[in-house]
């Protein structure tokens, strides 16, 4: 660990301070000591201080992924805390929030502590666990949220096992007000989904696969907004995939309800057409939708209806994905493609670069109450340096993640992390 160093000549973008210009950052003992944007008054560095020259590169606050599956404990054949956090670093993420659907479920402080201890010894980035809303994610009894919060959980979710019982959801949203953390809802009416495996429509009929209608998501978004309104609890909608959800969230925000929302790169990059060849790497829950949903999601990212881009990184073993489409597990390994896919939004003019960095760094930090997503003096030196012009081909075999399940194999993406600084370590990414 270097005690003191500079990052010079880079183009700094930090929405928390309204910075979008060339400048330099001084780091001391793993913390940001100062940020100077004026080019002229370059600090005279003595020879003892190392300089990272970021000429021609962009310098961002480290990315924060508020929706990650690290699979440990219980599913280390899919991913471990060690490999998952390495994948995060490679993707430019310095903080990730693992969902509780491990085995055992992260529904009590002992599991939370295990995850944090494991990350302390083996992890490369920061971890902020998300605890289960209900014991065993069974949707029946509230889990010990306060104890988990004390142990380090920053939000609660029964991701993947949506809380179907409205009364339990009401109580979860109400109870969470004690410590003002969000309840993150994977919005899916599982009765209506009825074990569907892709978006419902002409294509599902053509492929003979069972469909999931958009209404399956929309209904639960509507319900949870109403319950948030009823209780005053903070609601965060996970992985928005439909036009209908966007409309409901936009309306709720206009009415002042405490709701925030995220989407994932795959929901604004590809449609259901990606499953055409029964490609299980494009099987994800909620399913990939239609062009009109992509358009609505982009609009929502632009107007702020959707606050966050999260990865929903869901690694699976290759053997598990090499199954019949209807039997293969859902999920995309997303940490290492998120930046490249998201930068396409900047290229298309949907987001400004500050807007994008807000959505993958500052906004998730704010929602979760983390002191992250900023380059302000005093903050941890979590920094991501990106070569915005560097083109690279997505090759799952080269992922740090054990999950090689990506529908973006072979895509050429522009913009890549070249250095990630986290926990006082400097990771150079080749």
């Amino acid at each position: 660990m270097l005690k003191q160093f500079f990052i010079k000549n880079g183009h700094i973008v930090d929405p928390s301070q309204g910075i979008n210009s060339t400048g330099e950052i001084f780091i001391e003992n793993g913390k940001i000591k100062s940020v100077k944007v004026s080019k002229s008054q370059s600090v005279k560095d003595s020879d003892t201080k190392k300089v990272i020259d970021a000429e021609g590169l962009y310098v961002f606050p480290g990315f924060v992924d508020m929706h990650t599956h690290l699979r440990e404990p219980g599913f280390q054949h899919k991913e471990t805390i060690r490999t998952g956090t390495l994948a995060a670093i490679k993707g430019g993420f310095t903080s990730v929030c693992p969902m509780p659907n491990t085995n055992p479920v992260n529904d009590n402080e002992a599991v939370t502590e295990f995850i944090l201890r494991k990350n302390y010894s083996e992890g490369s980035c920061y971890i902020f666990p998300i605890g289960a809303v209900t014991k065993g994610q069974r949707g029946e009894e509230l889990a010990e949220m306060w104890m988990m919060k004390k142990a380090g959980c920053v939000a609660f979710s029964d991701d993947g096992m949506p809380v179907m019982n409205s009364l339990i959801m009401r109580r979860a949203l109400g109870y969470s007000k004690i410590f003002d953390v969000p309840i993150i809802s994977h919005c899916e009416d599982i009765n209506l989904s009825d074990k569907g495996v892709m978006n419902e429509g002409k294509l599902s009929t053509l492929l003979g696969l069972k469909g999931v209608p958009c209404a399956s998501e929309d209904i639960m978004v509507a319900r949870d907004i109403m319950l948030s309104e009823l209780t005053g609890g903070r609601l965060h909608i996970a992985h928005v995939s439909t036009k209908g959800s966007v409309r409901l969230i936009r309306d709720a925000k206009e009415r002042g309800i405490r709701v925030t929302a995220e989407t994932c790169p795959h929901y604004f990059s590809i449609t259901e057409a990606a499953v055409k060849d029964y490609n299980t790497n494009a099987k994800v829950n909620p399913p990939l939708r239609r062009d009109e949903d992509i358009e609505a999601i982009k609009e929502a990212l632009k107007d702020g209806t959707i606050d966050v881009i999260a990865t929903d990184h869901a690694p699976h073993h290759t053997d598990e994905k090499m199954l019949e489409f209807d039997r293969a597990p859902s999920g995309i390994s997303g940490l290492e493609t998120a930046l490249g896919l998201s930068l396409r939004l900047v290229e298309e003019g949907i987001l400004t670069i500050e807007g994008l960095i807000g959505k993958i760094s500052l906004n998730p930090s704010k929602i979760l109450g983390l002191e992250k997503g900023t380059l302000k003096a005093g903050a941890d030196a979590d920094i991501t340096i990106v070569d915005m012009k560097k083109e690279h081909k997505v090759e799952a075999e080269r992922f740090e993640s054990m999950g090689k399940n990506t529908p973006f194999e072979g895509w050429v993406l522009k913009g890549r992390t070249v250095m990630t600084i986290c926990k006082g370590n400097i990771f150079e990414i080749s």
Partner: protein
Amino acid sequence: MGADFVVIRHASAGVPYCLSKILKASVINAGDGANEHPTQALLDMFTIKSSKGGIEGLTVAIIGDIAHSRVARSNIYGLIKLGAKVRLIGPPTLIPSGIKEFGVEVFNSIEDGIHDADVIITLRLQLERQGKGFLPSVNEYFHLYTLTSRRLKLAKDDVIVMHPGPLNRGVEITSKVADSSHSVILEQVTNGIAVRMAVLYLLTGARENA
């Protein structure tokens, strides 16, 4: 193993397709999930052609559980390609999403749907569909969708009636209709052997000429 053919019937859609991408052998889809059953459609179309002299311009009504039927899917593709007008008849709970975009007409009333039809294909109703919310009861289905002699009179006089088998007599079709002069169900069974032999024969030939 050096097999020349793999004939596969599988509960999951897409399995024959995916296998065909990795096997050297010819893959014959003998039915995959709710996706396709191509040889059944071939034998159905062969049977129609034998009885009617052609397929173009005919009105073909398919009645029943379209949503879960691979037979219906393959017949829809084949019949439309050969110029028939295809009507689907069933309760909305058993009509798959987006099916109209395939170029078919959809009817919830059997009377409207079989009006002036040249060909009627009845599908086997999986009895376990009741209780899953698709249907209140078989009894109610009988009242609404069973092909009875009285309903058959609404179709053309020379209508032929088909069924991929096995039949639930008194559920999707009455015995009287199944055993009537309009029925070509037994011809379908016979033609099934010939068509499947032809498929194997053609694939062997294609292999030798390649």
